């Protein structure tokens, strides 16, 4: 199945604005992020902590709607889904 990944802010500089990935059926959000981390070490460094967990402030959105980045990581992705990843900005 095809899934689109949209990256924002600092993640966009690493991953590019968007990419389409061909994945096995029923791949979860967590598995997709792990795949991106393996393919792009800079993304791994930016998005994951030393223990390998997704940094807790990173926002995830499926089809442009925020999901809970703690509880919904095991959510299986569907054909055509768009996963967005965004590190919140804090400057002023």
């Amino acid at each position, binding site marked *: 199945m095809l899934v689109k990944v*949209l990256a*924002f*802010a*600092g993640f*966009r*500089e690493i991953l590019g*604005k968007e990419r389409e990935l061909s994945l096995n059926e029923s791949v979860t959000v967590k598995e997709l992020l792990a795949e991106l981390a393996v393919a792009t070490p800079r993304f791994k460094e930016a998005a994951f902590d030393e223990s390998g967990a997704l940094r*807790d*402030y990173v*926002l995830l*959105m499926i089809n*442009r*709607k*925020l999901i*809970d980045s703690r509880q919904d990581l095991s959510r299986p992705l569907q054909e055509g889904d768009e996963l*967005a990843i*965004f*590190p*919140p*900005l*804090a*400057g*002023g």
Partner: protein
Amino acid sequence: MLSDSEKKRYSRQIRLFGEDGQEKLKRTRVFIAGAGGLGSVISIYMAAAGFGKIRICDCDAVELSNLNRQILHANADVSRPKALSAYETLTGINPEIEVEAEVQTISEDNIDQLLLGSDLIMDAMDNFPVRYLLNRAALKRKIPLFHGAISGYQGQATTIIPGKTACLSCIFPRAPPAATFPALGSTCGIIGSIQVTEAVKYVTGTGKLLENRLLLWDGLNACLDEMACERNSVCRDCSE
């Protein structure tokens, strides 16, 4: 009632929302948290637009490295308190409004005093702990919080209406780490201007607010996106 001078000063925006809308702006008391990059843009446009009473708070003094973006302050203001420099700039732009400058660090201890009488809160902070404090204060008082944040070419904004929209903690449950962010004046210009536009719309009752929508600006690619958000039923700050 607007004076003749006010009718003339605001004539171009009275075409947008009438004298009635202008009077609503005049009656509105604003709290601006921060007189830095975002606070400069927000306060200048709010003062010029005729928000009747502006209280602006910042604990810092102007540094040379602020001047690439903090357009409230001039070279001669280096080392002076930002809030005082802000007071002079804003009253210079519009002597027909009331401006109050507070040289204070916003904290649990003084937030009630600082927000006394305010109808809305403009978020121009540079850190999430104080933003969460503003969020809780907005929820407690049931007054809107206009959120904005920037880093480099990137910015984000949303409008928080207590009891109606997701609050700041629903959208950003955990704070990103504190850091010294790259900052470009024009990015502050875009995000601060969006925040002020939202406040004008809220007060005059026009348009569609950024309610339950997080706006993301990417200046590097010149594109704007938005994400839907909703109230978190177990939010630590706004769930009942």
